[in-house]
C-alpha cells in the first residue's frame, strides 16, 4: 500500500492543504465587513515542506518520530495589510480574491496531477 501512496508524491498533501486554504480565504471574504477582523492565511510553502518525508528512518521505539509531519497542522498567520481600514478590519477584497483565484487554479492543478497518476496506475493494473 505504501508504494501506491508514494506514487502520489506530495500531491495528496498539496490538495488537502489547498482545500484548507480555500476555507481560510472564504472566511476572510465572509468577514470583509466585520469591524476588527484580522485576515488570516497559511504559509503554503512552509506547510508543504513539513509534509515532505525526510527519507526512510529506522525506529526502535514506537515513541520515535518518523519525519514527514502533517501539513494540515501548519500554523495560521495574520496578513499584513497594504491599505488598512479605519474600523480595524484587515481584509482587502482585491488581495483575497486574487489569492482565492490562484488557490483554486492550483487546487485544480493538483487534482489533475492526481487524476493522471490514478489513470496511470489503473492502466498498469489492467495491463491492457
Amino acid at each position: 500500500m505504501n508504494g501506491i501512496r508514494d506514487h502520489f508524491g506530495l500531491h495528496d498533501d498539496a490538495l488537502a492543504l489547498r482545500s484548507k486554504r480555500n476555507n481560510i480565504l472564504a472566511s476572510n471574504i465572509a468577514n470583509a465587513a466585520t469591524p476588527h477582523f484580522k485576515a488570516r492565511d497559511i504559509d503554503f510553502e512552509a506547510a508543504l515542506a513539513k509534509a515532505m518525508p525526510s527519507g526512510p528512518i529506522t525506529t526502535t521505539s514506537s515513541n520515535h518520530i518518523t519525519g514527514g509531519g502533517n501539513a494540515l497542522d501548519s500554523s495560521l498567520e495574520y496578513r499584513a495589510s497594504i491599505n488598512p481600514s479605519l474600523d480595524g478590519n484587515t481584509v482587502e477584497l482585491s488581495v483575497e480574491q486574487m489569492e482565492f483565484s490562484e488557490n483554486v487554479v492550483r487546487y485544480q492543478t493538483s487534482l489533475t496531477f492526481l487524476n493522471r497518476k490514478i489513470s496511470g496506475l489503473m492502466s498498469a493494473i489492467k495491463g491492457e
Partner: protein
Amino acid sequence: MAGIQNIFDISGRAMSAQLTRLNTVASNLANAKSFAGSKQEAFVAIKPVFETEYAAHAERSGIATVNVSDIVTSDLQPQRVHLPSHPKADEEGYVWGSAVNVEEEMVEMLEASRQYQNNLEVVSTLRSLMMRTVNMGR
C-alpha cells in the same frame, strides 16, 4: 446552533448577514421621507452589528464566519421641519422628519450587495471544485 464546518456554513451565514444588512437599508430608505408628530415617534435609521463567529478549532482550521449580533439605532437626530400643512404638525407648524442619511444608505446598499455577490462567487467556485474532486480517478 450547529458548529461551522464547511464552506456552505462560512459563506451561507455571511450571505444571510449581508441580507440582513440589505433589509435594514431597505427599511431605512422606505422611511427616509416620513414625518412624525413628536421627536420620540420619528423614525431613526437602524444598523446591524456584525460579529465574527469562529469555528470550534478556529486556531487550527482558520474557519470563521460572520453573524449579526444586534441591530441598533443610529445616533442621527430627527430633524424638526416647518410644515404647517402636514396633518401631524404641532401648533407652531413643526413636524419631525426621520433621521436617515439617504446617501449613506445608498453606499451601504452597494457595498452589501457586492459582498453578497463575492460570497456567492466563492460558494459556486468551491462547489464545482468539490464536484471535480468527487469524480477523481474516473
